[in-house]
């Protein structure tokens, strides 16, 4: 289950960054090169991830502040979403 969630989170990130999913590496930081998602895109990414989380665990949510946190990596984002869905 968690592998599927991680794959899906990467699909949302790849769409926001306009990169193929196959190019999205765990160690990439959302705000930094090569993803370079700015605060606006991270805000919209949060709303997409929130919608996804709520389809699987309606009592949980994710905030813009959590996704805009400096240094947050793809791996960190996946783990955050998995934690929220499986909590």
């Amino acid at each position, binding site marked *: 289950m968690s592998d599927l969630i991680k794959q*899906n989170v990467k*699909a*949302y990130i790849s*769409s*926001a*960054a*306009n*990169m*193929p999913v196959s*190019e999205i590496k765990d160690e990439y930081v959302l705000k*930094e*090169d*090569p*993803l*370079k*998602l*700015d*605060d*606006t*895109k991270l*805000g*919209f990414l*949060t*709303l*997409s991830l*929130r*919608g*996804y989380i709520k*389809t699987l665990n309606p009592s949980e*949510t994710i*905030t*813009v*502040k959590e996704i805009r*946190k*400096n*240094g947050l990596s793809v791996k960190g984002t996946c783990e955050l979403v998995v934690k929220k869905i499986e909590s």
Partner: protein
Amino acid sequence: MKNYFPILIFILLSVGVNAQDSCWMKFSNWMNNNKISIRKTFDGSKSENKPACFSFQENHRSENDFFNLDIGVKLFELELLKDKTSSLIFYPKVEWHKSADTAGLKNKLDGGINFEFLPFLLKSPKIGGLPNKGLIVAPWIQGTSSFKRNFIDKVYETRLTGQVSFASNYKFMPGCTFRDKKYNYRGIYYPYFGIEYNKIPDLITKGETEEFSLFFSRLFIDFWFLHKTIEMNIEGVYRQNIDMSSQLRKHLPFYTSSLYYYPGKQEAFSVGFEYKQGYDSDSKYQLVQISSLKVNFKF
């Protein structure tokens, strides 16, 4: 003073190259942990992504060369609508803008509260069977308030701004990252449309306060010529005075272009060159034509 600037740049370049494991990074991490951001400004433009800046400038309209300092600090964020399909965030900010230009001395301390509102979800292309509601191009709204103490003229100035921009995950649309064949980041662009209200004492006539509103449209383009090394920003703003009672001129175009060099393939520190021309809102809407050598740092 001009002779010292290359030396200063050289020293700071050395600092920047070694930034990855220096006390610079430790300070940056401390800022992150305390949720404090430092930028050039928090005026609602894409300058919010630009680093705080120390620059040496040449004014083409006078014989002045001078130093300039632009620092904005975002203190914290208050996020509302945490369970909704929208996002609303308020944040207080404090800014300091200082210029030693004898033709336009500036020393302003600025405080205010800004907000950012994302009303709709953004649709994603090629996302398979995952939840994917939203718009192909979605608006986002920003409001900024600025209450400034002008220490030069010993007056208080007010500016309130509301603007809408657009973002998308679809190629060639605003806010969609463009990339080269190797998927390197190459750039992004955003259009803005908005209204601003100003209350500025001594703007045109000494002793009189000008109150006026402006419609504006702005286009911001970010483009990387050389991956992780050389960045170009272009920003064009057209403002129109919609308050007929104001003595301010009706058409106020303004253009800025800048080129930045990031040593050592890091993103926290850069040096650059900026050219701006037009009626600058930060210089009381006076006609300016200024070139700058800049040292930028971002936390």
